[in-house]
């Protein structure tokens, strides 16, 4: 279990902006993550891709889900493609409980997400 504060790293690879949070995305960490995502999303161009790599996120609650849904809504408004990848079993479970696993584009690995 990673009990440290949530850290967020982003980088650009080709037409994809990759965001890699590390730590729990819960009620404590979600506001900062949401704020950084909004900043990153505001710079995305139509047709671009935003890949959120969740492989270093051991835990997510409904605050994190809400952040992902906001990002999906931004993707629709701004016409960029949102891809999630690297979900741990515990994080994937909450997407399934909320019936959101079929709503998002979810890939197993970052490589698969970048190839999508």
């Amino acid at each position, binding site marked *: 279990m990673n009990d440290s504060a949530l850290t967020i790293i982003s980088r650009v690879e080709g037409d994809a902006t990759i965001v890699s949070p590390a730590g*729990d995305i*819960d009620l404590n960490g979600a506001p900062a993550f949401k704020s950084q995502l909004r900043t990153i999303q505001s710079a995305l161009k139509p047709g671009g891709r935003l890949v959120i790599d969740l492989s270093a996120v051991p*835990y997510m609650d*409904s*605050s994190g889900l809400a952040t992902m849904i906001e990002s999906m809504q931004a993707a629709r408004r701004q016409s960029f493609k949102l891809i999630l990848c690297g979900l741990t079993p515990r994080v994937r*479970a909450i997407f399934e409980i909320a019936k959101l696993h079929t709503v998002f584009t979810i890939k197993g690995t970052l490589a698969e997400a970048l190839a999508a």
Partner: protein
Amino acid sequence: MSAEQPHVRLEILSNPLLNCGAREMVASMSRRMGFAEDAACQIALAVDEALCNIERHGYDRQTDRPIWLSLHAIGGLAQNGTSSSPTEGLKIVIEDEAQQIDPNLIKSRPLDEIRPGGLGVHIIREVMDEVIYEQRPNSGMRLTMIKMRNPQPKKDNGAPP
């Protein structure tokens, strides 16, 4: 607090920073009581969502208000040195001093509405076998959640027959 003696009683402040400790304690104890890993994670998630709802809505994000968490091992706990667990289920009671609301107003929202927010109650009801919201006698709310190791079909939580 509830009348019967819990196996664990924890008081925390309504600060989201503290939720991780509560949920991991619950997950860890659930595993020791014999719950499978996925069930232990579900119980921890339900506790976390309940705490979040109290902090966001009940206490309107005040971070210095009390929340009481009690764990009751249904069927009892294993004796020292035994490997099998007699625990049939886990009852979790979460109480606060937040503003009282009509328990009938605490409902899940339709999941076909893809929008942020309002998922906490759905998650709690989805992963726990029994969920009861009620007003405490003098102030605040009480949430009682039960998860059985070998669950029966879910009880209806207040909906008409």
